[in-house]
């Protein structure tokens, strides 16, 4: 009487189910748009048009996606160890220091390709250190990382306000931000990547850190699935008892994983600081750390899933901005609602349709298996 058990084909698991979730999210979002008396179809076409319709739109979409790849990878790495790092926001924020300090210090006498590696290292180190403390508390004291990383988001926020207002703000300036970097503190744009397709990214800050994000996605895949450390992390994540049995040192793995996660979140800071603003501004992370959670959930913690999920959220950000510009009746908050719905259906309710789909495919499989048998005997 219980639901027949069957393993889903990979294309269903990784393709169909996310698509269904997405479709439902957009359906409900459409109802919301309808409720304020606007045309969901127009909104949808604006969303797509805004995100994909022209070079600059694509540039922005990929710029946002870059942020989400970093933070999504950060959350995914921790997931593999059974840890829920929701401190990506704070880790990225503080890691801004690791980017901005080398830039401010070196931009007068070093070219960008010298500053960039230093900034990568700096952001990773600062991000890792910021995650180290919750990791250490979890490993040694059993303080849950969910709680401590949230707390550290707040600490990061206050700390950065202090740093920006009291330390890094140029004298005489009214804005809580650092000075603009010289040319060498700015990452090259990737217009050459899209120009072969006849696309012009225009003013979009689509920059080199996108390629770094792709490289990190590959690195994460290698580390998690192809190294001894990754093996230990996955063992811990799947079964702490099996890890103890195998002699894997729990504390060490938790701390290392949290640091890796923090480093990835930290690298996100490169994109807005070196790639877009060319200075550090207040709250430059802008929620990307939290979007990373949804991206990791939707991407099933696998880099190959995280990249498309990150691009989807890039579409929502860029296309959403377009909608609120073209349809003033749909406010910026409305866009947030739509993004929230996608997170809800694709992330939090990821398993809502799974039982039904599993049953459907199992029944299908059973029927197919039963058919060829002759009725005789």
């Amino acid at each position, binding site marked *: 009487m219980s639901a027949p058990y069957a393993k889903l084909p990979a294309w269903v698991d990784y393709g169909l189910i996310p698509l269904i979730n997405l479709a439902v999210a957009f359906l409900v979002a459409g109802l919301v748009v309808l409720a304020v008396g606007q045309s969901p179809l127009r909104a949808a076409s604006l969303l797509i048009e805004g995100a994909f319709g022209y070079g600059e739109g694509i540039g922005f979409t990929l710029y946002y996606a870059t942020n989400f790849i970093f933070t999504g990878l950060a959350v995914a790495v921790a997931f593999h160890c059974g840890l829920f790092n929701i401190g990506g926001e704070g880790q990225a924020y503080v890691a801004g220091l690791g980017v901005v300090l080398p830039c401010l210090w070196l931009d007068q006498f070093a070219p960008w390709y010298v500053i960039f590696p230093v900034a990568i290292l700096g952001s990773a180190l600062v991000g890792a250190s910021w995650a180290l403390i919750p990791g250490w508390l979890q490993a040694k004291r059993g303080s849950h990382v969910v709680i401590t990383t949230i707390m550290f988001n707040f600490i990061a926020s206050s700390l950065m306000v202090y740093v920006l207002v009291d330390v890094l703000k140029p004298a005489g300036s009214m804005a809580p931000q650092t000075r603009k970097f010289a040319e060498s503190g700015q990452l090259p744009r990737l217009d050459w990547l899209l120009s072969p397709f006849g696309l012009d990214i225009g003013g979009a800050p689509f920059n080199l850190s996108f390629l770094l994000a792709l490289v990190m996605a590959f690195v994460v895949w290698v580390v998690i699935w192809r*190294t*001894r450390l990754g*093996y230990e992390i996955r063992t811990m994540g*799947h079964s702490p*008892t099996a890890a103890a*049995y195998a*002699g894997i040192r729990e504390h060490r793995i938790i701390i290392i994983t949290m640091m890796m996660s923090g480093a990835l979140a930290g690298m996100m800071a490169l994109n807005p600081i070196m790639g877009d603003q060319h200075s550090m501004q207040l709250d430059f992370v802008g929620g990307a750390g939290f979007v990373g959670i949804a991206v990791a959930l939707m991407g099933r913690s696998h880099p190959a899933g995280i990249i498309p999920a990150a691009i989807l959220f890039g579409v929502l950000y860029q296309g959403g901005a377009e909608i609120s510009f073209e349809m003033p009746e749909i406010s910026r908050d409305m866009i947030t609602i739509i993004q929230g719905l996608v997170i809800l259906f694709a992330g939090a309710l990821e398993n809502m349709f799974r039982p039904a789909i599993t049953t459907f495919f199992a029944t299908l499989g059973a029927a197919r298996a039963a058919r060829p048998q002759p009725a005789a005997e």
Partner: protein
Amino acid sequence: MSETAIELKGIDKRFGLVHANKNINLSVRKGTIHGIIGENGAGKSTLMSILYGFYQADSGDIFVDGKKTVIRDPNTAIAAGIGMVHQHFMLVENFTVLENVMLGVEDSQILTAGIAKARQELKRLEHEYELEVDPDAIIEELPVGLQQRVEILKALYRGAEILILDEPTGVLTPAEADHLFRILEQLKAQGKTILLITHKLREIMAVTDEVSVMRRGEMVATRTTAETSVEELAELMVGRRVLLRVDKGPASPGEVLFSVENLTVRDSRGVDMVKDVSFELRAGEIVGIAGVAGNGQSELLQAITGIRRAVRGKVLLQGEPIHVTGKADAAELRQRGLAHVPEDRQHMGLVLKFDESENSILGYHWDPKYLNGVFLNIEAIRKDAAAKIEKYDIRPPNPRLKTANFSGGNQQKIVLAREMERDPAVLIIGQPTRGVDVGAIEFIHKRIIEMRDAGKAVLLVSVELDEIRSLSDRVLVMFDGRIVGERSPETGEGELGLLMAGVEDVREAAE
């Protein structure tokens, strides 16, 4: 008094491949204490969970007071007058006794009136059944014995006429247990019916009127307690089956490879689970530890394999000490020649979501032959896994298949292959054939004997007495955290069974 309080007819329940209850028939007379006895995993708890509505039987009927009753959930069970005292108490630790008792039956949203009523009713119950507890005491400040009394009060407060107690003495001291039995007598005198689930024979003999024995999901017998004996029950419980034929020559024990001295292990609740245990293992012998599950075997295994920290004790592996009280870890012990086939292969011995080859290196993933620097040498790992699959006839022979998709027997072979192929000096094996199909059992037994004949020291822990007797060269019996005796494997099942049940002077009891 011949009225039946509960009658079960043809109760059948499966969990996937496990047939937990096979066509169970049981009738419990009103106003009696009815014991249900059987080894762990015999299906007692499943049966009681069905009666209390936690599970639904796949087929079969339940009659309460002669009326056919469908018990969908615990609420319907309570409405039918059935109360349950769980092995692990279901109390809100930081609530008072009174609050716990009235939880879920508060009558109204405003508590004041309900509290007064509950207090009065509680007083009456305490009086009637000599169940004194301070109604305003906080649960977590009460000793375990009193917490259990609160559980009983809770059931009575809900109007229970039939009370199920699941392993009630597991957490009690002997004095507390005696007190509990007096309470049960009192309840019986008031006309309540009691179902007592236990695996301790002595308790059955002490308090029950009738006793039913379960074995491997079946109800094998019901006896009147006064007309049966501990021996008969032990025999029924363990099941007197022919020894599995295991071809085994005499052992030729050599030097001591592993020794344990005065080992004491405490669990997370602070209860000593292993008490002052000492033994040694010699090269070329199999030492079996017999005992009813839950008498400290698991903790013993975990302590000597570096998974759980011991409180005190000295353990030597090939003459060199193991820091069992400190930072001995399983990886280090493996490097020193100690292999471990854990009792719980699904949670400990394997990561079910890994593929077969990944599990074939669990615990040995530090070995340079599986690595290229910091990277896993996937090719070497798969090749190695394929060789083990071939040698141990693991099916399906696919190192890339997810481990959860192998059968229990094949999963166990994955673990055995991994541990045995390392050529360890000492092999610690827990429950080698639990949940394993008959074909694989024979194979596994053969491999264990081969390890012995190759000069390894083997420690075998199993709740299957047959297995212990047919494989071991010496048998140690564990009860309540202690080794209560050493016997030769030829010793009668009855005698071993009594030792396992904690009857200390076996010869005296047998007379």
